[in-house]
């Protein structure tokens, strides 16, 4: 591995972990329980309580989504099973379109940001060029900028292009990479032995070929991390849909769910059919939970890496 200059600009965050080689490090041995049997029982009790706190609200949510207007705020668990709430929901609002819009935007946002960020990250990791560390410092510094500062001018840009009230502004900015993912992927590319690329060069590989055929396949896990992070970010985002979308048929799920809250939330003077809000919350949450279970390994590795390589 080549010696890499320290990052310019960013705060030195790399912590105790001298494990910068790659995420797959399973460092640390399992700790033996300290203390006697009583403290072990107490520890499991604490974990059990925590588990209830983290899981029970999901059960609660699903239960509430199956109730009626009259009973949605009572506290009986699974006392009714009005699955027709879900079919009604699909009739009273275009939630099927919202779902498709969210999927479309999510996949486009995730695919574009993965490839564009990987391209840029490779440049920072492999090429030697003047002012590289200064430019990379700029990438890191741009992460500090609150979205609010550029929010209005970005709205004006898309407005000038005539693309407000379309789904385009929700993902097209990702064509240009994203600082956080560039940073993350650069770390992974740096972990690849430089000799690998020198060998490819000797075999006559061009730079794009080295990126596409050597670097990319070897960092597949990291690319998946970026993909699912962005899919989740896009699926969850409320700000951009609020700013850019007017037609109810163009809404994504978060925007649609918010419109349902405004319409039905009884404490805010709505119509009080709160069971529909709950059913829509289930519809927006379930895909994320499925994705999490399918890609759990990548979620965990990605977050742990973020925290230890910052």
């Amino acid at each position: 591995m080549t010696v890499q200059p320290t990052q310019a600009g960013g705060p030195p965050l790399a912590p105790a972990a001298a494990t910068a080689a790659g995420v797959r490090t399973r460092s640390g041995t399992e700790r033996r329980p300290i203390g006697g049997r009583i403290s072990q029982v107490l520890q499991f009790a604490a974990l059990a309580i925590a588990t209830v706190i983290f899981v029970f609200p999901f059960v609660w949510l699903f239960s509430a989504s199956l109730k009626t207007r009259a009973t949605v705020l009572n506290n009986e668990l699974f006392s009714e099973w009005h699955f027709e709430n879900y079919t009604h929901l699909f009739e009273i609002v275009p939630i099927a379109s919202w779902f498709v819009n969210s999927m479309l935007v999510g996949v486009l946002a995730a695919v574009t940001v993965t490839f564009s960020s990987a391209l840029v990250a490779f440049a920072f990791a492999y090429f030697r060029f003047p002012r590289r560390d200064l430019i990379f410092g700029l990438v890191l510094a741009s992460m500090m900028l609150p979205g609010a500062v550029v929010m209005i001018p970005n709205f004006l840009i898309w407005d000038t292009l005539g693309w407000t009230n379309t789904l385009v502004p929700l993902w097209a900015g990702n064509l240009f990479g994203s600082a956080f993912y560039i940073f993350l992927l650069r770390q992974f590319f740096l972990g690849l032995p430089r000799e690998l690329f020198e060998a490819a060069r000797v075999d006559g590989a061009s730079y794009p070929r080295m990126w596409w055929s050597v670097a990319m396949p070897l960092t597949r896990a990291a690319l998946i991390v970026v993909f699912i992070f962005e899919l989740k970010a896009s699926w969850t985002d409320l700000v951009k849909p609020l700013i850019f979308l007017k037609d109810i048929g163009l809404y994504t799920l978060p925007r649609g769910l918010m419109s349902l809250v405004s319409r039905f939330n009884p404490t805010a003077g709505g119509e009080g059919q709160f069971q529909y809000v709950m059913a829509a919350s289930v519809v927006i949450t379930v895909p994320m939970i499925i994705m999490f279970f399918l890609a759990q390994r990548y979620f965990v590795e990605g977050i742990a890496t973020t925290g230890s390589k910052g």
Partner: protein
Amino acid sequence: MTAPATAAPRRRWRMGEETRWALLFLSPWIIGFLVFTAGPMIASFVLSFTEYNVIRPPEPVGLQNYERLTTDRRIGSSLANTAFYAALHVPGVIIFSLALAMLLLRVGRAAGFFRTVFYLPAVTPAVAVGTLFLLILSGNGLLNQVLGVFGAQPRWLTDPDWVKPGIVIMSLWSLGSTVVIYFAALRNVPTELYEAAELDGAGAWSRFRHITVPFISGAIFFTVIVNTIASLQIFAEIYAMFFGATGSSSAQSSALFYSIYLFQKAFRDFEFGYASAMAWLLFVIILVITVIQVRVSKRFVYYAGDDR
């Protein structure tokens, strides 16, 4: 011509093949940075000295927007609301996440299961977390059912004094990613250190204070910064909960966080000039707080194998 050319064109001429390829690979970011970050920063800064409502062209008003920041009572109250939230949310996340991560460390193979459980709320979309807590925090909702045992029944969604504590409780439910970070950091603490300390007669607190904390101080520092910056910009769940078409006004004034007020000024009232000034104030606040945190951390953060 063979005559020596001037320095500048010569250097450009000699730009190596590698540099040209690097520029090509970097071009998406360079274009994106200029068009969607640097350009908009300049535009936003300029707009902050104007009055602009999209319909008529921007009109320069000098420092008027910034003067208005100092007199607008909602600026003060929304900043106070945000500070209140951040002051409870950040320490809360750190303490509870650390406690949970340390518990995870004790359960061996079962840790993976519990980690999954703790992380579930963190993959739940913010708006859905908001709607879920509209239910949980409601008058006779889940939380008050539990608190009923102690005879307390706060009106979390309507009583201005209880709105923010309710929001903090909601925010703590989604602390999963911080737990994952701490758990990963804790697993890197060498076990031998604890064993040696135990032989030396160090108690549990002393081991925690002198081994655990220094070793994971990098992770703590990272999460403090990230959580602080995020908490100062909290938006989606609160906006969905309290700022739909209608809403209880007393609850709204208590839940009016800075980002929400900024968003209202920009995209409800279309006061682009004033909202730009607000955005720059937020930027400066975040910058100052982060610089302070970095400075303070220099004294406390320990880097293993690092001669910094």
